[in-house]
């Protein structure tokens, strides 16, 4: 059993481990651990426990916590152990403390002293142990207690100490950037440390710093490039090699940093091209680690300023990943593809079948990654296929976290790219039905708005068809047992508004359904409220149409219940319903005009419609109204009810609510959007549609040319376009405040038709693949190439133009795609749009061998051609790593070589060199049955008898 020295273990401990190892169930394990807790509680506080024994107790405590039980009774003993003189015991104490305590634990204060003392120790291993603890236990308040010492240790002669000191400083930076802001220059300094381990560690804090503030570190580009170059050229000690790759973990970290520094910076990027190209060529694509570095190169290439040669190499690497049998590599390939298509959208097409294979793979991880890719490449031509797939997938899983994520992605895509309203509504129905409680309530409001507005413009029949089909589908869906609350709200609203509109269903049928809903979901007050108001609308429409209203008995009993409801909201709605039913047809019609949810309601605050009546009364000798504030001799008490706050200030307390903040007239509407939209605030998002004020502005009909209709976006996402959030407060300067009747209003331009779009055009297809796959591939990838090539020039301009303009015309143009399929299409500019006009995306036209030739050209030439300065810079750059080469292999154990020489294995005997791990492991070690038997025998000697169920415990991990 390996090396035992010093790590003394008693039979008791071995028995414990054995019994835990042999436990067959969680219950059995729990029983063992509970017994152990009892034992430890008794033993650990006995006086004069030998420290070896104590160390063992502490490790047993670690076991107790690791297996999920509370060991807090022993924390104090772990803390005490950190005081010990023996290094091993001390370090075990520190380890236990870092495992047990979080940085805010009360006991930490007892350790800070010990840490301070240990940081000053002559034994560098003690210092290292203390620094480990610093990284885990020091919080913002205690940083100052150790900071000076940590900074001092940055110059410690031992590289191990410098490395850990750097990481401690990194930790302080993570915890409280301001506490070490004056010290960040140390990271730059340590980048040039002559120990590669210290340099490698320094990359961690630098990565964080650069992530936050790229511009301050641009000067380091040359250094990073130079380091990377030297690493790739194997100038680091052999000990850093892993599976014949030179220091791959350092390479990866450097590539990550370069990706940050080169992002959007042409000059910085040009310095990187050569070295990244070199690494592309040097990477061994047959080993995992080689592919890990390759993947990082792709990430880097797709982040920095584009370079055609590198993009080609990246695309090649991606093809190799995607063609691999290994799921891991395909996963990396899909991820890499998602990054690269941002720059070269056309490469997706050549991998369409691989992508579809991944999408259809039973492996969930791969599937999700592929959905992520599809999400990135969605556009109006493939949105239907992609969203349908996503919804199917949502239905199939029950992981709520991911369900929420994918559902909101569906909604986002549907809002951005929906080809028709009909499709949008159907899609939303599916999303609501299957993930309704997980999506944002605004989505529901958008849907109601859309149904209410319909297609506007010119096509009333299409509108009513849409509504009828919505009503049909909802009546059908209501049969399902358990529906999400949000979806039920939408259903109730639509049924109330349009349930009887086309005459297909009788009022009693619809009201019956609504009563069923209210009864079935009797613990959901919001749904009940929606249902009651829907009932009121149905009855009001009936009365207005001159038909006799017979309230169903179940409806009557429901109303009786609601009239006495504890919810005042429900009560009020029920009373309103009662009142409406008692009115005559004429009154009802003006209270509840049918299909008027989109119309503006002007609230006449001055009650000017009463002017005539007042005039009459005054003429008849009535007293004119005196505003309360002007009245004299009023009792003070009356002021408590005063609506006017101007005078109330003389009295101490005010009992009435503060007045609402005055809405200021703003001109913050972006000029570009002024043309089509004007914004009116939506005061109350939840129930806006549910109460009808008694005055309505008549007939601002929602048909053709109604340009004065306002688009109301209360921070709501714009549909059909890029998400744009409109400023929420801005009013027109008229005195009468407009309130909203419908959910929100849309302007005339945001309209469309129901003409079904020709989705799947004929396009070039590859042979010998199943037709379904071809079809899917075509619908995902090929869709755009034909139609979207046309607008070449005009489109380009809009793409390069400012974002503002882009946003403003999006709502319109994306609708046009649906409606004017034959005309040149002005597509909303889309980075991910594969069908971009200029690029001929047919991959086969390029000779792959030519591409390969291109790859093999010396990359320096490329870089030089691109930029004269890059090569010059490379040669000028300081040879920071040159130091390493002087002591090629031995630098790290030069100092302690004499101590170690006796016990360290001769380097190389265990170096598992080969390409694939398992083979090599076997070949270098051979079958290890003998070892297992030896271990077995040893353990038996100690009295631990492995029983039959788990000889596996002895199995070599690498075997």
């Amino acid at each position, binding site marked *: *059993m*390996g*090396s035992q*020295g*010093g*790590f003394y273990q008693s039979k008791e401990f071995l028995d414990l*481990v054995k019994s*835990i190892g042999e436990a067959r169930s*969680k219950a059995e394990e729990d029983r063992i651990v509970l017994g152990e807790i009892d034992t430890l509680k008794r033993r650990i506080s006995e006086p004069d426990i030998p420290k070896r024994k104590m160390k063992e107790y502490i*490790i047993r405590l*670690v*076991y107790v*916590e*690791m297996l*999920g*039980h509370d060991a807090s009774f022993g924390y104090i003993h772990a803390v005490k152990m950190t005081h010990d003189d023996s290094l091993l015991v001390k*370090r*075990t104490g520190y*380890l236990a403390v870092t*495992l047990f305590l*979080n940085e805010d634990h009360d006991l930490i204060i007892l350790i800070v002293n010990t840490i301070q003392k240990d940081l000053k120790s002559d034994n560098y*291993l003690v210092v290292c142990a203390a620094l480990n603890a610093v990284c885990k236990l020091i919080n913002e308040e205690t940083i100052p207690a150790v900071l000076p010492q940590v900074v001092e240790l940055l110059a410690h002669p031992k590289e*191990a100490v410098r490395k850990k000191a750097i*990481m401690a400083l*990194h930790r302080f930076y993570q915890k409280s950037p301001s506490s070490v802001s004056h010290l960040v220059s140390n990271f730059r300094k340590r980048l040039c440390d002559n120990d590669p*381990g210290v340099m490698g560690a320094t990359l*961690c804090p630098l990565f964080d710093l650069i992530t936050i503030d790229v511009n301050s570190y641009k000067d380091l580009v040359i250094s990073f490039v130079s380091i990377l170059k030297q690493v790739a050229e194997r100038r680091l*000690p052999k*000990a*850093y090699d892993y*599976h014949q790759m030179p220091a*791959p973990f*350092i390479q*990866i970290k450097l590539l990550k940093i370069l990706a940050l520094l080169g992002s959007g910076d042409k000059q910085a990027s040009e310095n990187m091209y050569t070295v990244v190209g070199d690494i592309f060529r040097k990477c061994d694509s047959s080993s*995992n*680690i080689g592919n*890990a570095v390759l*993947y*990082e190169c792709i990430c880097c290439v797709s982040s920095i300023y584009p370079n055609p040669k590198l993009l080609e190499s990246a695309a090649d690497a991606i093809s190799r990943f995607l063609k691999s049998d290994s*799921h*891991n590599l395909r996963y*990396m390939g899909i991820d890499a593809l998602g990054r690269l298509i941002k720059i070269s959208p056309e490469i997706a097409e050549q991998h369409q079948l691989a992508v579809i294979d991944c999408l259809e793979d039973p*492996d969930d*991880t791969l599937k999700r990654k592929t959905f992520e890719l599809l999400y990135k490449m969605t556009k109006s031509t493939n949105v239907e296929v992609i969203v349908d797939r996503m919804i199917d997938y949502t239905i199939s899983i029950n992981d709520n976290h991911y369900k929420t994520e994918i559902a909101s992605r569906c909604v986002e895509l549907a809002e951005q790219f929906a080809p028709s309203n009909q499709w949008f509504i159907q899609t939303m129905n599916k999303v609501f039905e299957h993930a309704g409680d997980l999506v944002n309530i605004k989505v529901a409001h958008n849907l109601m708005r859309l149904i209410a507005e319909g297609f506007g413009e010119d096509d009333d029949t299409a509108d009513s068809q849409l509504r009828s089909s919505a009503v049909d589908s909802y009546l059908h869906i209501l049969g399902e047992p358990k529906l999400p609350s949000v979806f039920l709200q939408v259903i109730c609203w639509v049924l109330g508004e349009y349930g009887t509109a086309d005459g297909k269903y009788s009022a009693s049928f619809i009201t019956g359904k609504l009563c069923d809903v209210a009864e079935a979901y009797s613990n959901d007050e919001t749904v009940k409220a929606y249902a009651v108001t829907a009932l009121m609308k149905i009855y009001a429409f009936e009365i207005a149409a001159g038909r006799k209203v017979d309230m169903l008995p179940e409806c009557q009993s429901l109303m009786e219940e609601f009239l006495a409801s504890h919810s005042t909201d429900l009560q009020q709605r029920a009373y309103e319903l009662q009142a409406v039913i008692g009115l005559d047809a004429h009154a009802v019609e003006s209270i509840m005009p049918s299909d008027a949810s989109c119309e503006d309601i002007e609230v006449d605050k001055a009650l000017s419609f009463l002017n005539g009546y007042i005039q009459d009364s005054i003429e008849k000798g009535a007293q004119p109204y005196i505003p309360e504030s002007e009245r004299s001799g009023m009792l003070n008490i009356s002021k408590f009810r005063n609506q006017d706050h101007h005078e109330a200030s003389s009295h101490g307390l005010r009992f009435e609510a503060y007045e609402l903040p005055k809405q200021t007239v703003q001109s913050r509407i972006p000029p570009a959007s002024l043309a089509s939209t004007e914004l009116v605030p939506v005061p109350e998002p939840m129930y806006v549609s549910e109460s009808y004020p008694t005055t309505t502005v008549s007939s601002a009909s929602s048909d053709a040319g109604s340009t004065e209709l306002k688009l109301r976006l209360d921070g709501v996402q714009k549909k059909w376009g890029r998400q744009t959030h409109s400023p929420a407060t801005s009013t027109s300067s008229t005195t009468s405040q407009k309130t909203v009747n419908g959910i929100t209003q849309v302007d005339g331009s945001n309209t469309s038709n129901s003409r079904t779009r020709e989705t799947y055009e004929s396009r070039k297809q590859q042979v010998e693949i199943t037709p379904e796959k071809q079809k899917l591939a075509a619908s995902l990838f090929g869709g755009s190439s034909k139609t979207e090539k046309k607008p070449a020039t005009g489109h380009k301009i809009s793409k390069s133009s400012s974002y503002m303009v882009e946003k403003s015309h999006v709502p319109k143009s994306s609708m046009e795609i649906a409606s004017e399929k034959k005309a040149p299409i002005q597509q909303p500019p889309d980075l991910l749009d594969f069908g971009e006009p200029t690029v001929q995306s047919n991959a086969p036209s390029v000779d792959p061998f030519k591409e390969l030739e291109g790859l093999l050209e010396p990359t320096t030439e490329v870089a030089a051609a691109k930029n004269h300065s890059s090569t010059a810079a490379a040669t000028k750059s300081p040879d920071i790593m040159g130091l390493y080469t002087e002591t090629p292999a031995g630098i*790290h154990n030069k100092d*302690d070589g004499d*101590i*170690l020489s006796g*016990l*360290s*294995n001769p380097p190389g005997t*265990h170096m598992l060199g080969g390409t694939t791990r398992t083979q090599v492991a076997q070949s270098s070690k051979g079958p290890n049955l003998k*070892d*297992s038997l030896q*271990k077995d025998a040893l353990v038996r000697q100690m009295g631990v008898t492995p029983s039959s169920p788990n000889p*596996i*415990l002895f199995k*070599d*991990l*690498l075997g």
Partner: protein
Amino acid sequence: MGIRFILMVNKQGQTRLAQYYEWLTLEERRALEGEIVRKCLARNEQQCSFVEHRNYKIVYRRYASLFFLVGVDNEENELAILEFIHLLVETMDRHFGNVCELDIMFHLEKAHFMLEEMVMNGSVVETSKANILSPIQLMEKAS
């Protein structure tokens, strides 16, 4: 932050080593470990070695009876983490000689010491086996 936790769990779902780089309470750990292990153990050899779980990505690798699971955040290079696991196992193998589950159980603190050398603040800081093992060997010798 990169690495959020490292777990070693056997086929029966019993935890053999747990190291967290962000603080979770005992209950949270127990729940998390249960969920993750259930997810990973249900997968077969051909499937990806990566699993998404809540906000984590779990990279896992199986050696004989023991699963090594590393929770990382989204920006991490999964393949590199997979190889990091292998490096860890190789390092333990060099130290224990044909390392097995029981070695880790009997020498839990040593396994932790190796991890302490390799990972700090959730980042991989040392990948040279000699550098990782030398403090442990020195400590053994001293005591």
